[in-house]
């Protein structure tokens, strides 16, 4: 299935990883004042590259491969873009570009303005995250993936404390420490695998791994390490303060993309490196943690008084849905790929919707000078586009059509019925209800009248409102994906999709 030669246009994969790195190097050479301008040039180029990779994989229904330096694994390193990586890269590129446009209002460096450390650092971190994510989705070697993941973490952590407040520094440290615990577990698993099978190349591993204790232990350790970085309930201690404390464009990228990086690796691990290794019970455990996240995260979101914390808890809940992929993709009937497609669509639509929501929250906070939900009355008159963006993104989270969230939920629900695992359906429906609760809790206030005349802090530009709206519309447009297993997302899958041995 996997070509062992560099395919035509394989160089695009290298470009996708290197382009942000080049940007970082250039800005170090040219000086921090120019980093925004450099980023503004590179962002659209990167978007075009991601779109080209997506288009090629879609057109040819075949993975793109690049063998770095012509050295084949296990000696060398391979980059591979299958269906899920291509879709993930495009999502990443769109969200990063939108974030870049949005962030100009906060971290812009107009000509002649003084050098501000936060601005310089922001753009470099944004590029770092982009490169890290591209490496995560393209890497084909468990150790390389570890390095990519660390790059991602170390670009993400400073983003949290960019403002330099005491509590954000505390949140960032908390994030970093827990992520490092995760890294240790992941690394431990990698060592075990290398010791047992003598390779870390995913394609080679899939042929060598046997269902035996060492593989099970290694896989469990790596999974738990990645779960810590994904902030799956109940390992979410770092997420709310970090995602709520970061500046709005930072929160957008962290919530929409960064937590998905480690999730992506969990999927790589179970579906590509060790297919057929997971048993029913462990699939149920991952699903149960996901279910806990959905219910618990949503209930806590409902209890929040501040918008950014509400959105952060909503992220915890929405991540939970992704883990229904594992219990629901057992066996190899065609319906399996229903859960597969549903799970990925949940990831993509949540990425757009959540980025849009955090941007909207940032705009509201700038306009009002605070983000206390109880005092939102009347903002609809001031920044209607932002409120619409928040509402549309919220509808996608609730799973209301037409939206990617609806398609995702529909497919996942179909899978629960087909697999006879109705308990996940109950969780999904309750999760949708609770999401409706917290979305309308905010909208109800925003659409109401002000109890006292609104004191406006800073006016926000229409352009930034439109960026938030565009992302929300992306989530809505994903709702036009046909309600069936996507062919693109199956490109590069092994013949038997089931992750759970039967």
């Amino acid at each position, binding site marked *: 299935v996997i070509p062992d030669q560099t395919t035509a246009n394989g160089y695009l994969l290298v470009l996708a990883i290197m382009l942000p790195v080049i940007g970082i190097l250039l800005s170090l050479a040219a000086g921090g004042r120019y980093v925004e301008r450099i980023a503004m040039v590179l962002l659209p180029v990167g978007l075009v590259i991601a779109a080209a990779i997506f288009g090629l994989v879609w057109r040819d229904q075949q993975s793109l491969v690049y063998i770095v330096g012509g050295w084949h694994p296990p000696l060398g390193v391979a980059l591979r873009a299958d269906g899920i990586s291509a879709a993930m890269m495009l999502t990443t590129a769109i969200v990063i570009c939108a974030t870049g446009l949005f962030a100009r209002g906060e971290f812009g460096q107009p000509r002649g303005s003084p050098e501000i450390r936060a601005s310089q650092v922001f753009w470099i971190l944004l590029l770092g995250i982009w490169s890290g994510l591209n490496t995560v989705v393209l890497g084909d070697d468990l150790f390389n993936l570890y390095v990519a993941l660390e790059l991602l973490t170390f670009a993400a952590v400073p983003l949290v404390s960019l403002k330099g407040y005491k509590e954000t520094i505390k949140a960032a440290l908390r994030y970093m420490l827990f992520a490092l615990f995760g890294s240790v577990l992941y690394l431990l698993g990698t060592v075990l695998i290398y010791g047992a099978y003598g390779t870390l190349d995913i394609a080679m591993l899939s042929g060598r791994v046997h269902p035996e204790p060492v593989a099970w*232990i290694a896989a469990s350790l790596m999974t738990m390490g990645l779960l810590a970085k994904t902030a799956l309930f109940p390992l*979410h201690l770092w997420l709310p303060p970090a995602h709520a404390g970061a500046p709005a464009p930072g929160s957008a990228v962290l919530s929409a993309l960064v937590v998905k990086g480690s999730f992506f690796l969990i999927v790589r691990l179970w579906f590509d490196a060790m297919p057929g*290794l997971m*048993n029913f019970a462990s699939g149920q455990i991952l699903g149960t943690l996901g279910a806990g996240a959905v219910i618990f995260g949503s209930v806590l979101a409902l209890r929040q008084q501040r918008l950014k914390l509400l959105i952060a808890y909503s992220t915890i809940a929405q991540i939970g849905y992704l883990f229904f992929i594992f219990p629901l993709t057992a066996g190899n009937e065609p319906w399996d790929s229903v859960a597969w497609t549903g799970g990925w669509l949940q990831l993509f639509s949540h990425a757009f919707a959540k980025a849009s929501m955090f941007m909207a929250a940032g705009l509201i906070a700038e306009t009002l000078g605070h983000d206390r939900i109880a005092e939102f009355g009347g903002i609809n008159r001031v920044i209607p586009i932002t409120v619409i963006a928040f509402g549309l993104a919220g509808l996608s989270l609730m799973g209301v*059509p*037409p939206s990617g969230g609806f398609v995702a939920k529909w497919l996942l629900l*179909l899978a629960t019925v087909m697999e006879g695992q109705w308990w996940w359906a109950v969780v999904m429906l309750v999760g949708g209800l609770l999401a409706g609760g917290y979305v*309308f809790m905010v909208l109800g206030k925003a659409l109401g009248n002000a109890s006292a005349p609104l004191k406006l802090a800073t006016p926000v530009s229409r352009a930034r409102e439109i960026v938030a709206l565009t992302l929300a519309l992306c989530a809505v447009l994903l709702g036009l994906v046909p309600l069936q297993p996507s062919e693109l997302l199956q490109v590069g899958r092994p013949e038997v999709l089931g992750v759970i041995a039967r």
Partner: protein
Amino acid sequence: MSAGALLALTIAVPLAMLAACVSARIRDRMPTLLPLAPLPALMAAIFSNDGSTLVLPQVLLGLTLAIDRPGAMLLGTAALLWIAAGVYAGAWLRSQSNGGRFATWWLMTLTGSLGVFMAADMVSFYLFFTLVSLAAYGLVVFDDTPAARRAGALYISLAVLGEAFLLMGFVFLAVGSPDGSLLIRDAVAALPTSAWCDPALAFLILGFGLKIGLVPFHVWMPLTYTAAPIPAAAVLSGAAVKAGVIGFIRFLPFDTALTGWGELLVAAGLFSAFYGVAVGITQSNPKTVLAYSSVSQMGMLATVFGMGLVTADSGVPVAAAFYATNHILVKGGLFLALGVGMPSRVRGFWMVLLPAAVLAIGLGGLPLTGGALAKLAVKAPLGDGVVGAFAILSAIGSTLLMFHFLRRLVLSASHDSQTATSVRAALPWLVIAVGAMVLPWVLFAQAGAGPLLDALAPKELWAALWPGLIGGILAIGLWRWGYRLPHVPEGDVFAAGNSATRAARILGTLAERTDWYLRQWQMAGVLLLALTVILIGTMLTGH
């Protein structure tokens, strides 16, 4: 113009108007244009043939719109109400500061309300159903009073709950549908033999039952209709609620007798029919009385659906649609009558009272009214047995409730501070009143209940008259001794549900405290290790 184009315009025109609302200038003028939005729907209902179908391109999900006889009846009548209420809204919004916002919510609700009558596949049905349910929230809370906010919160919670029920029902339908077809017709045809028939029906009945306000899901109706502005209450009670009715019509397999589900619907429907009357007569706000009358009327319709399932009566869809069209006009009209705002001492008050009396008492089945025809149309499905007897009792109850409404109408009009009444406010009411008196006679031939002359036979006239007489006598008793009735708060069961809110609050606090513990370092560390051990354990033991 081809039928397909008409179907497309029915959706496209309100959507285009909605899109135009992006411009603040057009938005502010939109209230006066509102009556134009439902015009294509009215034309589509009149001019398109039974079975006209429009399949949208694949890019638009291949949504399929189609029109059949029950759909056309409901679509046309609902469009008429939307037009009349739109005229009223346009006049009323002149005194409001943010008419543009009202118009935006109005157009969204309208699109969903009309679209749902034409939806032929599950996705478009769910789309329009969601639109009409969720967008109505904006109309309910428009006045932004504490009562409106409370009603809005309850409304949206139950609407979202209904969405969840329906989604699950549709998933069960889709799984049992041949070749994964999403067309409602295919899925419903396969339903009786599907392995998922029972769960599908359970969720569908819950979802649609919630929409039409079957007890105990009726709590949103009195609060919402009372809090919403008059034109909104008119379209919500008249047109929007019929999304649930068309749901039952489209999704219940009336060709096959399904024991159990039919009886259940009959029982729930009859209970609602009497419950609405019993609580309705204790209410003093005429809007609330109308809301409880809706609970009762929709309960009667649910009974008809239930009997259709019990007896495998494939004539039920048309009969029920006819019954519902009468309710659209009468209920929507009576809300508009409340909005005329004419003091009862003014000489022209008879213009409000007289047609209102005909419509209201007609709802109970007064001979020669649309209500009598509606009762006649569903007579066959209801049968002559116990259910038929209950239906007559319910007609008596309806008459009683409507006499009570008329009295509250007069009383509230005499106290009403709204003084000036414009012709523009009275005109829509009169149009709907005339429509409600005439249209049922025009449509009756399509209702499949035999020739129109039968309705004029002395036997039928008497059958329609005597329950009304008893109702009238009971109404006199109610006026005389009514003050002795206990006072039931609007939204009855919900108002008593404070303990539920308290329980929810305790649960929320508990969740917060748990979260605090989970987010302590020691706890998170222990959990990380414990979960690792558990995962390894299941991997080792599971093989």
